[in-house]
């Protein structure tokens, strides 16, 4: 609880700081909520839910609520690099009805190519303005990998023809915090899969600052919004795992919270898609599930307003929040146990050839993988 007490104090300090910044708006959040038919009670309920999702004790919900009210003081710049816009699509599905859009009204969204009204020269002006005006204070979110081959020429953005590489470096300079949204920005993603023809890299490989990595292809809307909220509340990065992923979201293996875990333990497996086991909800390990090697909150939070997640839909996890999963977790319909256990992380090489043959050895994989779940710092 000492850690929590310290964190709580830090959160309070942060809020005091945010309150001290001159308000940009004449109308309070409370007033706006009333205007939009959202009661204080709804708001408190939302704050409590958000607090639980961030794996914080309930007393923190006061901080969450207050942070939401102050959120408009944090400018957000969102850049698109080598990407498919799936992460932005995930963002727009953010799922607390009514309130989520309000929350986004209260983050000052200075630049986001998919959503902003201005185009071309005017859009570029908005970016330059925000970088200068909010230097040292803005949150930087990056979607997509950074092509670095050929001096970054595989991506240019803007009338001035700057490379994506240059734009990210410049924007990182004055950022209060940098968030790589999705596996491409975090680890290079699909374009960085072998043979990586464009030299695509994660943001953290091209800038000198700490970068929060939100793995996932795409990350769920909750993991994106929750991470923004954490920074706004505490003014610092959340506790991160060895790949700089927030532990509140990526601290547990998919396998550990899987609704089919009991089937795994009982040795009940889907042998082929559509068989009786598939109809009965058996474990998908033998048809390629990578849940035992993947850290994410998909089983508990699901996607699209808790509608579903791949395992519920009868398809194994493909490990999309892990670095290099396109190479290390393929073939996606075969158990990883058939292959060398390489690339769960950088140090996996030192384990040597950990070969998982039969499914029972999956338990062994559990133990091995759990080692990597230990926090780097706490």
């Amino acid at each position: 609880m000492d850690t929590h007490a310290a964190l709580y104090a830090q959160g309070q300090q942060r809020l005091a700081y945010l309150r001290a910044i001159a308000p940009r708006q004449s109308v309070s959040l409370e007033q706006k909520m009333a205007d939009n038919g959202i009661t204080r009670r709804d708001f408190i309920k939302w704050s409590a839910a958000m607090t639980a999702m961030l794996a914080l004790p309930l007393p923190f919900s006061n901080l969450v609520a207050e942070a939401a009210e102050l959120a408009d003081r944090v400018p957000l710049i969102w850049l698109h690099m080598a990407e498919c816009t799936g992460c932005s699509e995930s963002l727009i599905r953010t799922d607390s009805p009514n309130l989520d859009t309000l929350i986004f009204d209260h983050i000052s969204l200075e630049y986001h190519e998919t959503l902003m009204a201005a185009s071309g020269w005017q859009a570029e002006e908005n970016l330059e303005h925000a970088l200068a005006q909010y230097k040292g204070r803005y949150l930087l979110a990056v979607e997509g990998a950074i092509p670095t081959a050929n001096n970054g020429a595989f991506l240019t953005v803007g009338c001035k023809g700057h490379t994506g590489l240059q734009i990210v470096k410049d924007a990182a300079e004055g950022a209060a915090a940098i968030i790589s949204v999705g596996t491409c920005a975090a680890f290079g993603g699909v374009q960085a899969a072998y043979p990586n023809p464009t030299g695509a890299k994660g943001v953290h490989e091209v800038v000198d600052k700490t970068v929060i990595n939100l793995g996932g292809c795409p990350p769920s809307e909750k993991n994106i919004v929750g991470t923004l909220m954490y920074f706004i509340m505490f003014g610092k990065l959340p506790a991160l795992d060895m790949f700089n992923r927030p532990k509140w979201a990526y601290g547990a293996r998919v396998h550990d919270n899987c609704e089919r875990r009991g089937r795994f333990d009982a040795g009940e497996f889907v042998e082929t898609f559509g068989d009786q086991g598939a109809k009965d909800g058996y474990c998908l390990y033998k048809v390629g599930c990578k849940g035992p090697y993947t850290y994410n909150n998909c089983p508990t939070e699901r996607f699209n307003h808790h509608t579903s997640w791949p395992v519920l839909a009868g398809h194994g996890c493909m490990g999309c929040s892990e670095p290099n999963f396109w190479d290390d977790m393929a073939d996606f319909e075969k158990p990883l146990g058939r292959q060398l256990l390489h690339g769960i992380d950088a140090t996996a090489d030192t384990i040597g050839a950990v070969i998982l043959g039969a499914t029972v050895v999956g338990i062994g994989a559990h133990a091995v993988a759990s080692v990597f779940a230990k926090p780097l710092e706490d």
Partner: protein
Amino acid sequence: MNKRVVIDPITRIEGHLRIEVEVDENNVITKAWSSSTLWRGIEVILKGRTPMDVGLIVQRICGVCTYSHYRCGTEAVENALGMTIPVNAKYLRSLMQSSLYMHDHIVHFYHLHGLDWVDVVSALGADPAKAAQDSLKYTDKPIATGEGELRAVQERVKALVETGKLGPFANAYWGNGTYRFTPEQNLIALSHYLKALEVQRVAAEMLAIFGGKSPHPQSLVVGGVTSVRDMLSPARLQEWKQKHAIVQDFIERAYQADIVMAAEAFGTEASVLGGVNVKSFLCTNDFLMGDGQYLFEQGVIMHGDLANVTDINPDFIKEDVTHAWYQADSAQHPYDGTTVPDYTGFVERETVYGKLPTLDGDGKYSWVKSPRYQDEPVEVGPLSCLLVNYAKGNPIVVDAVNGLLARTGLPIEALFTTLGRTAARMLQTVLVGQASLHTFDALITNLMSDESTFIAPEIDSNKEYVGHAMNEAPRGMLSHWIRIKNGKVENYQAVVPTTWNAGPVDANGKMGPYEASLIGLTLEDPTKPLEVIRIIHSFDPCMACSVHVMDYKKQTLGQFKIDPNGF
């Protein structure tokens, strides 16, 4: 003295698109260039991988048409292996396709294209009572346009403006003379912009029910679908149907009404009454409503000749790279194409914003290739789909198109415009939504006697397989082409909608649909080229899709100018 206008980034699209135009002394566009400024090389990455993983990888071409590539890649493999999947799997795939459309077209019209039509600042001066009354002109059952709701929307936006912090609405083209809605009409549309944010979430949930998540659903496999438990759950089926009702209601009572309203307000706005200058169109079969029965049927219209719709011949498709950043001797069929990157960069010149790097129109200037059908540029997308089916006499489409023309009082020629392209997308959404209920019923009927969802694929690693698949992605006809050898992907090619529409000039000097659509357009203020942005948005650009390559002939990719450290 002609002037160069540079627009980069074109925002409110998927991906990275640069448009440049040249205007004369009267600000009339005389030349236009369309360029994608990103190359990712995904098909290169597919090489040597198992065909079973193809769908999941090609899905990452695009997170907006997040299901189209997944399905197309999976079906290309099935086609190559000569498989027929279970009927239930076909229906589930079609339901997911419908769900994607209902989401994608709503988001495109309101959140991407909408701000080209709606002047947000003007809405602040509207009379909410009058707006509520006006909304009844376009449907007798409007959504989210009651006087109180409109007042709340207006006050909410006003409060934002008063902060001086417009966020995503900052520094746009408010007040431009080509915005033609009255303040009241702007307020109605603005209210729907906000309402659509809620509705699109529900539409995304529809896709997630059978897909596991959205974007990037994960329930297709070569041989069928995996979401058998969702299919067999009566609660799950009804969950889809309930969400469908919510979304379809919005489509018919808001989206449709707003297009009728736009037809009235913009019916005399010259800048949206051109924009269809490539008059050849093509589309493919999609949306299974029953055994072998598709909502939309394939066909080709060449040179505006609606009396002669021909069947698609895949052999007639070739890609030209004369002005694209690749090297090749001549136009090539997807099965024989080569791809060697040849990036030549920009050329400095004077523009309306001062000296800037600009596209080299005489040389190479885009990462997008130029697909041609019988050497001709062709437009694809909702407009093409409806025109082909209208010309073929598809009764569902004929009734829908005639109905819309009657309601708006517009002639058939109005379809061949920017406004028509935007209206066609709406009409397609209405029809897809309605047809999906037939798909749903067909699934229920089939479930009474059949629960199968999967047939195991078999690959003989001693055999070589070739196959392709086509479907109608939200932005138009999509085709994937695969060759399998030694049980692995040997070659892969995707010819995608935005490539058809956005490609540069070909060897014969023929412009693609984007570039051609801009010629002759007059700009009110060349430094604020809203008219160009509106026309380009009407195509619904999806650039990540269009930038794709595959080295069919095994040449070492990147012996050119790619840093070897990149590998």
